[in-house]
């Protein structure tokens, strides 16, 4: 099959080209990223190990949790892989410039689909292994397992990765081919599908069953545990297979490996068949959708009012950015997936009876939730806010030569990002504290912290996006993974830890009775001052550096404060 062989050769050449590009990068940059990645992995391993020790300290229930946590961990990763498979398969099957190239060359539709599926699984794999490695290392360390355990896990992970990423590819192929074009019918069907899925998960993982008290408590505290440990669940196969092989039960281990491998191969076969039958039609549908003669203006009635509220140039830039965002499914789908999963979890806090937990647990959960939302904010800030100035690309001259000054262009970008992220994140944390039923002081602190994180993430991402602006680069992934993008996410994560930890620790120490009221109040005042100071620095300094950098770099020097006027 020469075309498939040619694709393999091309991939080999591309990897060689990528290595060459990497070698041409600054050594400091490569060293910085490598050291940071290793430190991150090491720290994550320590955190996981500490968590295992913590669970161990509970005795029976904790030990039961550790045993099942392995299966649950893989179920969670599997779900993430499926979501990632949906997003990456959509962009590589329907949004890639490579597809028209392949379509006019002698490839069968099934070859193109399978090639793009493997590519999408490959994209998803680095993040998968980045999380898997520290977790299994910590698990092996805690359980004093042989180093072979890590090796077996990596071996089992490959079919597991293809299996779950394959579900995502299949879902997106069928959705693009068969989902009705009418937004009303499509949204109704998606809503019904979502409800059915939620009902299915609820039935597969009921909160009560004929369990012992300890088992009941464990399953009610950790959602999805029963589903993860179900004998027909791939997460059970991988957990059982790895532990069997590690403990020398080779035949049982290989049985589970065979189950995983055959399921992954079957998924590949189904993708090939479905691709052969549906990909061309799906691609035609998706291309026809992007060639509509009349496109509905996005959020027009709402955006019209912006002109009255804001100066017209800022309103124009904000309107353009909102429309661009909503017309790129890859962008908004990622935001919806991340925030949607968090919203789903927060709205279900009471179903898991977290509101009945002791005060010190609920206070810890509040700040863990703030941490989770902040981590998503940092990730989305780096993914969408940081590259937005660079992505203006060759059109940037249009903005620079317009009467909109550079500070106003940056203000428009910053304000839009802040308004959007603050609205979503503050709402999410408000839902979380409401569901947990925590007191007014902790609620106010959590909301203040998340608002400050939104502000700083947007300030850092807009400012550093201007400092490291790259108008030649059209690929957002390349901009995000550049030195500036990496520095941005490191600073966002560092800032986030620096402001959440003091509040989390203070409230926790008060709840367990270590701090008296007077000391707690003083500590809270100091933490608030620290939050204010750090937020101002993390927001304003990058924006100022960004402005200076843009003035220095741009070949055309527009006026700094006033609009240029034609004197002729």
């Amino acid at each position: 099959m020469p075309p498939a062989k040619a694709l393999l050769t091309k991939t080999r050449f591309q990897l060689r080209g990528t290595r060459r590009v990497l070698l041409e990068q600054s050594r400091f940059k490569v060293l910085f990223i490598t050291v940071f990645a290793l430190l991150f992995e090491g720290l994550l391993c320590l955190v996981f190990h500490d968590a295992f020790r913590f669970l161990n300290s509970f005795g029976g229930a904790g030990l039961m949790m550790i045993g099942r946590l392995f299966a649950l961990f893989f179920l969670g990763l599997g779900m993430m892989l499926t979501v990632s498979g949906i997003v990456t398969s959509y962009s590589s099957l329907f949004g890639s410039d490579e597809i028209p190239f392949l379509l006019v060359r002698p490839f069968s539709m099934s070859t193109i689909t399978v090639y793009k599926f493997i590519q999408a699984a490959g994209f998803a794999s680095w993040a998968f292994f980045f999380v898997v490695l520290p977790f299994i290392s910590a698990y092996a360390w805690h359980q004093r397992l042989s180093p072979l355990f890590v090796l077996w896990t990596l071996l089992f992970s490959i079919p597991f990765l293809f299996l779950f990423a394959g579900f995502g590819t299949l879902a997106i192929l069928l959705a693009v081919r068969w989902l009705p074009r009418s937004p009303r019918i499509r949204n109704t069907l998606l809503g019904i599908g979502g409800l059915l899925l939620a009902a299915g998960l609820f039935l597969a993982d009921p909160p009560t069953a004929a369990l012992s008290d300890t088992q009941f408590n464990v399953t009610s505290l950790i959602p999805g545990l029963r589903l993860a440990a179900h004998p027909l669940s791939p997460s059970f196969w991988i957990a059982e297979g790895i532990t069997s092989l590690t403990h020398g039960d080779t035949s049982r281990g290989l049985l589970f490996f065979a189950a995983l491998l055959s399921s992954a191969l079957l998924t590949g076969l189904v993708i090939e068949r479905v691709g052969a039958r549906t990909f061309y039609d799906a691609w035609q549908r998706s291309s026809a959708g992007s060639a509509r003669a009349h496109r509905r203006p996005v959020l027009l009635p709402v955006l019209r009012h912006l002109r009255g509220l804001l100066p017209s140039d800022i309103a124009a830039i904000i309107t353009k950015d909102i429309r661009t965002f909503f017309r790129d499914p890859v962008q908004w789908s990622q935001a919806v997936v991340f925030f949607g999963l968090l919203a789903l979890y927060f709205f279900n806090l009471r179903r898991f009876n977290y509101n009945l937990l002791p005060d010190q647990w609920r206070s810890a959960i509040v700040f863990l939730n703030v941490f989770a939302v902040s981590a998503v904010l940092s990730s989305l800030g780096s993914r969408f806010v940081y590259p937005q100035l660079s992505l203006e690309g060759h059109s940037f001259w249009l903005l620079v030569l317009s009467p909109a000054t550079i500070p106003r262009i940056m203000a428009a970008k910053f304000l839009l990002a802040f308004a959007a992220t603050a609205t979503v994140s503050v709402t999410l944390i408000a839902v979380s504290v409401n569901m947990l039923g925590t007191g007014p002081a902790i609620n106010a602190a959590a909301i203040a912290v998340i608002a400050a994180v939104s502000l700083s993430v947007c300030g850092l991402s807009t400012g550093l996006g201007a400092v490291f602006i790259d108008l030649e680069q059209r690929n957002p992934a390349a901009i995000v993974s550049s030195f500036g993008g990496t520095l941005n996410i490191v600073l966002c994560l560092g800032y986030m830890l620096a402001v959440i930890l003091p509040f989390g620790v203070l409230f926790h120490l008060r709840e367990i009775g270590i701090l008296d009221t007077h000391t707690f109040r003083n500590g809270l005042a100091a933490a608030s001052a620290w939050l204010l100071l750090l937020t101002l620095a993390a927001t304003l300094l990058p924006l100022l550096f960004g402005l200076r950098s843009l003035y220095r770099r741009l070949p055309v020097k527009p006026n700094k404060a006033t609009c240029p006027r034609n004197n002729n």
Partner: protein
Amino acid sequence: MIEIQNLCKTYGALRALDNLSLTIRPGELFCFLGPNGAGKTTTIKILTGLVRATSGRALVNGTDIQHDPIAIKRQIGYIPDTPYLYERLTVTEFFRFYGELFDIPEPRIAEELERNFTRFGLLEHRGALVKELSHGLRQRLIYATTFLHNPRIMLIDEPFVGLDPYTIRLIKDLLRTHTREGGTILLTTHILAIAEDIADRVGIIHRGRLVALGTPEELHRKHGGDSLEDLFLKLTRPDGA
């Protein structure tokens, strides 16, 4: 040979092609002229299978690409206005990849590589990554590779945009040689002088309909001595102009 019969393509309410019929014979270089959005690229995309026609037929050597896509793709060479190239492949690697794609034996790939790279001035760039090439060099690379599998039918969208006079001459010679050897070429261009220079026949398309068809001389005679430019402007005048 290309045969287009009553071809229609609609995008919602927009009619991109309206009952277009046309035959391009072997050994003929046919130039498709028309204002932006007239339907030129849509026609080429239907012939390549990138777009499916709403109705009508588009046959390449007697076969509809929808019926036997892989066989037809082996017979055509398509060069879009902004071709996709793998940025992280070197010039030589891209050429070899293309050869393998069409199952061309290795010795012939090596032989053609030497010949084409010399002809297109790519020898000194053979080790460079595609991302490091200028627009003109990228265009030369795509021409060098697209002719590798000896396609009988060439479909070219805007071949001369942003090229220097040397490259334009190179491509014009290449296209003339291809038709002399019995190949068929359908190309679109906005440069009317080039169309007059190289085309065996010219078709002017406006709003998806063929409004003029013939050799440059025939069109000149038929329309009272108008130059191709005058004729083009007369036939494709926007409403109210």
